[in-house]
């Protein structure tokens, strides 16, 4: 009884110590990894041992040392400083892109699922067509279509991530809305004479929150890989901004001379995605959802 009152009176007791001890293991490990990444990113945005574009900080390709934990690249830039500065860029791009995709996809999906009929039919066909274009091809084609003026701008990367995610999120949101639309409280709201927007955002959205939260977390896990892949192929953020995928691609020809310049940033990227994946796994178990990898 006391448990129930505590939870209803203070939503934020959710993160209390009692709750922490009963949360699934993967969620905890994931949350800790993500926290470390966020703190590292905040730190890196304000201070790095060397400037991220500063050349000649030491002997190029001299490998890992205490001064240069991730070694030095071809022109003597400190890879660790670049990695540290890049952390907040990777995180911010991932969050911004995923949020854009969530907002667009959720709005369209919930409306489509609730309204149904022709609107739903047309939306679903367009969504289907967008999903049929392999995501990397869609992303790259959009970047090319945006033209040289926008190429390499963070805004474009955020837009592209949102564009790739939106149709996939639309599908999930639509399925959830169709199920919720049959419930009594929606019928009651209709009888009260509420409008479409009011029903979608005040009745359906809160009840689809669990599904959408897991979806958000799942998409967020993949965003650093997508952004990294764009950078790796040379269509991402413009150099010398140290996005991790771009750094891996830049240092790849140093693989024989100084492998740490590739695997340092690689380890950072992989650990971030592992953190997101564990977090998603735990979150979906806590919320009673089952995420499908990929798709």
């Amino acid at each position, binding site marked *: 009884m006391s448990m129930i009152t505590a939870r209803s009176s203070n939503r934020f007791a959710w993160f209390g110590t009692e709750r922490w001890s009963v949360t699934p293991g993967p969620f905890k490990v994931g949350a800790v990894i993500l926290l470390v990444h966020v703190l590292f990113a905040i730190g890196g945005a304000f201070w790095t041992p060397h400037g991220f574009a500063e050349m000649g900080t030491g002997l190029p390709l001299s490998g890992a040392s205490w001064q240069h934990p991730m070694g030095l690249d071809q022109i003597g830039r400190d890879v660790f400083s670049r990695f540290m500065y890049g952390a907040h860029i990777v995180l911010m791009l991932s969050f911004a892109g995923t949020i854009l995709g969530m907002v667009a996809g959720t709005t369209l999906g919930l409306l489509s699922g609730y309204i149904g009929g022709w609107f739903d039919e047309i939306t679903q066909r367009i969504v289907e067509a967008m999903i049929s274009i392999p*995501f990397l*091809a869609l992303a790259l084609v959009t970047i090319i279509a945006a033209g040289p003026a926008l190429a390499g701008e963070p805004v474009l990367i955020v837009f592209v991530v949102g564009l790739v995610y939106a149709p996939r999120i639309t599908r999930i949101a639509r399925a959830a809305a169709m199920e919720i639309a049959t419930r009594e409280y929606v019928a009651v709201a209709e009888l009260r004479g509420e409008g479409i927007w009011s029903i979608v955002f005040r009745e359906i959205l809160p009840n689809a929150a669990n599904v959408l939260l897991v979806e958000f977390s799942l998409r967020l896990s993949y965003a650093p890989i997508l952004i990294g892949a764009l950078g790796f192929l040379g269509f991402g953020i413009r150099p010398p901004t140290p996005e991790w995928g771009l750094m891996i691609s830049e240092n790849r020809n140093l693989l024989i001379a100084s492998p740490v310049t590739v695997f340092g940033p690689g380890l950072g990227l992989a650990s971030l995605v592992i953190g997101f994946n564990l977090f998603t796994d735990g979150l979906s178990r806590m919320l009673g959802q089952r995420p499908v990898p990929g798709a």
Partner: protein
Amino acid sequence: MSIPRLLASRVLFSALTLFLVSILIFLILEALPGDVATRILGRDATAKALAVLRGQLHLDQPALVRYLHWLGDFLRGDLGVSIATGRSIADVLGPRIVNTLLLSLFAFTIYLVLALVPAIIQAVNRGKAVDNVISVITLLLLSLPDFLLATILLFLFAVAVPILPALATISEASTWQEMLRAMVLPAVTLAIMMAVYAIRVLRDSLIEVLRSDYVRLAELKGLRPRAVLFRHALPNAIVPALNVTALNLGFLIGGVVIVERVFSYPGFGTLLIDALQLRDIPLIKATVMISAAVYVGANLVADILAVLLQPRLRTSR
């Protein structure tokens, strides 16, 4: 719905989807506001170069006319001419597609082993240490970006222990042995990427099937465990994994692009990247259209196979 009608409606929907894809690609590449020629050549291009390119792309005609021309030619098998090389796109694409098909076939063979063996081990030993260890490894591999996995394998087997070539540059002059050796690293990378998605699903569905009544019955009949597993459980557990693989094909085509790029393999993926870098719009349109067709086609096949393979779907009508 009877099975032929079900299949016919699937085929029609796939065709409709591809039609919409063609409109989308055209809209993104050619109908955005602003001059296409300037976007391709950049702002510093001379007026003459712009005029030549506009002529090549027929930019003097309205967008709708250009779209219908392109679609008509495409359906008749005329993919147009590449701007960058001046060669017929069909000639450029043909060998690249063959190369990528060879690579995919090789990767798919490795994938079958990499997906089935761990999933069967997990399902048979569910809840034990082996199960958990394989789960952790799958999660780690699932979190590894494809370009990083490719780079790690390249480092391990071409740099640290140089037993395989780092570059998978094959040509018509290469012998079969050379080609196979060159394809090992890219194929293994692709196979691992595909397998990590399938293992989780296959394990869960296999465990579910092993708990079902007909598997119990088969066990009670006194069949050997191996016969129960391979003859009764596995065929029924494969369908969900098949669907996940088809749904993830979009990611896998992206993976092909990256893996071919890392190992400089002369396939479809490197062609797409080259076309994008050269802003060769006709070639981009053709490659993206074909990759979408592959995705839609594979999902259609997976749908049909699911109907034909799974007794539950076949009889419940």
